[in-house]
């Protein structure tokens, strides 16, 4: 059969040779040199920025949606009266240019910016502002609660908006900077609410193009945008790329220019990758270990303090964040107004932890279950570290992994012993975080821990209605000290927002609240 095998032999040899040549060519490495960052130079008009992100958006309804992947998109379409400053600690005029406050502190009169138009070309007026704020306030299953202090909104002249409050309200400007209070056309431009949000219209730098769910969402330049010369980009496309490796390869291969949240383990490699800039933007994200005070022995402050003191936060930062973070000392992250650096949030001290345990209702230890989300490698790493760190206290920790939805349901219905959670700020003011965390009647059951310290609750309410900065600072400092001492949660670490961008991207900056202004971004060569 020798002659019959010749065609096969030739074919096999040719195939093998081709494969070897291809693999050798592909594996030949180029020079790896640190990426040049995307700074400097004069902005260039044009181009389509592609952002590869970890999840798809859910909805463009800014008054009801809570997921960041929706929020960061429609913030390019809708704009509020005030916006967050770049350092995340205050607000600056945006669609309003100034305001006056009545002597009784109950009436704010805002002057609207001249020359602002929607992407349809229609000028924005106070009627649009009144409509938008009234809609936001009415969103009872959405963000309506943030506007609880507002009694009414009036539009006496086309360029003036008056907001009447029920009581003096310190966070008002911060609340108005929230995306839910962004301005849409009055009466949704003649459409129903549902129709409007399928192709929304706003005053922002970009306007709606299309959304193929699960694939890509695209916005194009708003030709009527009010900032002269901006936006520089022709369009922005957000693509849904769930896999960390694929997002990174897309940026390296030029198919995308921004990789949202690369894996922590890849950050140092990306920093030294040619053509890629790795940015770690300061954020307001804080990770916590929550205790359910409805379950013994977590109602015992000594137990909570003992656990908090037994946690080596530096080790967590190394293991989970690969060093890209800092141990947390307060409920507040450093980028939040009134953050107190001196807050004595319990840090690692095993001797002190043992003393607390000895003084507790369970001096010889106990068994407990730590609930985490399955498939979440960060949470698993934290849980495994805690399992080992709590052993010297006699605490036997069993890790329970549940699918994310079930784990969330159990957390929010207080069917857990200990679990992990986190917070990122929605507004540049601590009020929302404090109310959510310490007020058992605020709907969130004190961050789902059942913590109840009436003094802290009273101070939180006082701080909301105290307009003097120094007085608010005193109240929030005391709140931070007290809740750190009560250890209703263990504050674990602060982490930055990680973005890898192609070195052709300029002006991409993320505020500590997580939002970005794409009108400032341009693509170089």
């Amino acid at each position: 059969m020798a002659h019959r095998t010749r065609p096969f032999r030739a074919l096999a040899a040719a195939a093998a040779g081709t494969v070897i040549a291809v693999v050798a060519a592909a594996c030949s490495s180029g020079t790896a040199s640190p990426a040049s960052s995307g700074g400097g130079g004069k902005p260039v008009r044009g181009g389509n920025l592609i952002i590869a992100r970890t999840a798809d958006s859910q909805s463009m309804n800014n008054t009801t949606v809570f997921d960041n992947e929706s929020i960061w998109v429609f913030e390019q379409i809708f704009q509020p009266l005030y916006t967050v400053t770049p350092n995340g600690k205050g607000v600056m005029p945006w669609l309003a240019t100034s305001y006056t406050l009545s002597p009784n502190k109950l009436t704010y009169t805002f002057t609207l910016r001249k020359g602002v138009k929607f992407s349809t070309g229609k000028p924005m007026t106070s009627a649009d502002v009144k409509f938008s704020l009234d809609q936001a306030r009415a969103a009872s299953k959405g963000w309506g609660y943030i506007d609880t202090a507002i009694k009414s909104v009036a539009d006496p002249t086309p360029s003036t908006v008056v907001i009447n409050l029920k009581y003096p309200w310190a966070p008002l400007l911060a609340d108005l900077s929230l995306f839910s209070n962004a301005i849409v056309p009055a009466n949704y431009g003649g459409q129903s609410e549902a129709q409007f949000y399928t192709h929304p219209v706003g005053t922002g730098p970009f306007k709606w193009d299309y959304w193929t769910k699960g694939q890509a969402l695209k916005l194009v330049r708003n030709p009527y945008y009010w900032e002269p010369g901006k936006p520089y980009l022709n369009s922005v496309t957000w693509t849904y790329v769930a896999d960390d490796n694929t997002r990174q390869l897309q940026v390296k291969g030029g198919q995308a220019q921004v990789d949202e949240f690369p894996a922590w383990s890849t950050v140092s490699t990306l920093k030294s990758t040619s053509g890629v800039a790795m940015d770690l933007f300061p954020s307001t994200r804080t990770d916590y270990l929550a205790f359910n005070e409805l379950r013994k022995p977590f109602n015992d402050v000594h137990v909570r303090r003992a656990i908090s003191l037994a946690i080596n936060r530096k080790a967590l930062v190394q293991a989970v964040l690969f060093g890209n973070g800092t141990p947390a000392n307060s409920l507040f992250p450093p980028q939040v107004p009134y953050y107190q650096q001196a807050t004595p949030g319990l840090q690692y001290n095993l001797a002190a932890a043992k003393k607390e345990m000895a003084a507790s209702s369970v001096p010889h230890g106990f068994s407990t279950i730590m609930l985490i989300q399955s498939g979440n490698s960060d949470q698993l790493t934290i849980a495994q570290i805690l399992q080992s760190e709590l052993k010297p206290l006699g605490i036997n920790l069993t890790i329970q992994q549940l699918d994310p939805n079930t784990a969330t349901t159990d957390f929010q219905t207080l069917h857990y012993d200990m679990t992990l959670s986190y917070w990122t700020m929605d507004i540049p003011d601590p009020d929302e975080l404090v109310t959510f965390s310490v007020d058992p009647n605020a709907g969130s059951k004190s961050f789902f821990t059942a913590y109840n310290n009436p003094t802290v609750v009273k101070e939180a309410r006082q701080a909301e209605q105290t307009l003097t900065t120094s007085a608010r600072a005193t109240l929030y400092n005391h709140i931070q000290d007290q809740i750190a001492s009560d250890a209703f949660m263990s504050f674990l670490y602060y982490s930055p927002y990680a973005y890898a961008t192609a070195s052709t991207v300029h002006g991409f900056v993320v505020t500590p609240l997580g939002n970005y202004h794409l009108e400032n971004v341009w693509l170089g060569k």
Partner: protein
Amino acid sequence: MARMSFILHRLLLLVPVAVGVTIIVFFMIHLIPGDPARTILGLHATPHAIAELHREWGLNRPLASQYWLFLDRLVHGDLGQSLYYQTPARELIFSRVPVTVWLIVYAAVLAIVISVPLAMLAASRKNGVRDQAVRAIPLVGLGMPQFLTGIVLIYLFALRLKLFPVGGYGSGLGGHLRSMFLPSLTVAIGLAPVIIRSLRASMLEVLGSDYVTTARSKGVHGSRLLIRHVLRNAVIPAVTVLGINIGFLVGTTLIVENVFAIPGIGQLMIQSIFARDFPVVQGVTLVFGVIVVLVNLLTDVAYTALDPRVRFGR
């Protein structure tokens, strides 16, 4: 006529399959812990907000009533509204089906293109060097996790050689062919070893039969013998293997869809299960059931095309 009758009979079987699937999936997804309202609301899931969403979605009704409503909609072709996206579930699902069908069909074609020549090569010299190589080397593809195969292919052919894009579905026929090549190859690399072995075994069996000996004695040798006289008779068991594996593929393309950022139905299914997006889970499962039945039907029809001795109804 017999063929048409057979096909119609099998298509009618879709009805009890669909009903069975909907009952099982409906009650399973509603009875497992978890709440879709909490996915939407996140940390802001107050009791009031949850109750409002439940009312809006009809989740506060008894389960039997919800199932009846689902069936009523289904007979009118309405799969309900996605709780996550707030858009018709039918639109969502049917926009993804072509993507997964592309992936599966393209992968099957590539698997056949890889497997048939290699099986012929192996069968032509039983236990020879190339037979050993053909049996051993593809097993690497079988043993390697799909996500790793995918990443390696992306790195080599997309990033380094720039022959294909790094993921995505592409647009237009040419775009789909190019974008879907690497993901389909990833799936085919996992399918091929099984098909090669099955086809090789049947070819060896056929090579030993009398009519092949007769053909050889008449001077028919080599590729002509294999292709004209052996392959067609040996391929039926391999068709069965391919059909069964394609059936499994329908529900397991998720990993490849994730690695290559392809908006297929596997990805939608997992996302919907995690979010407890009941209408979409129910709709996707129904589509899976229909596809599996259709694949089995195509496999049976393929038998008769390949072997005239196989008759419908016998």
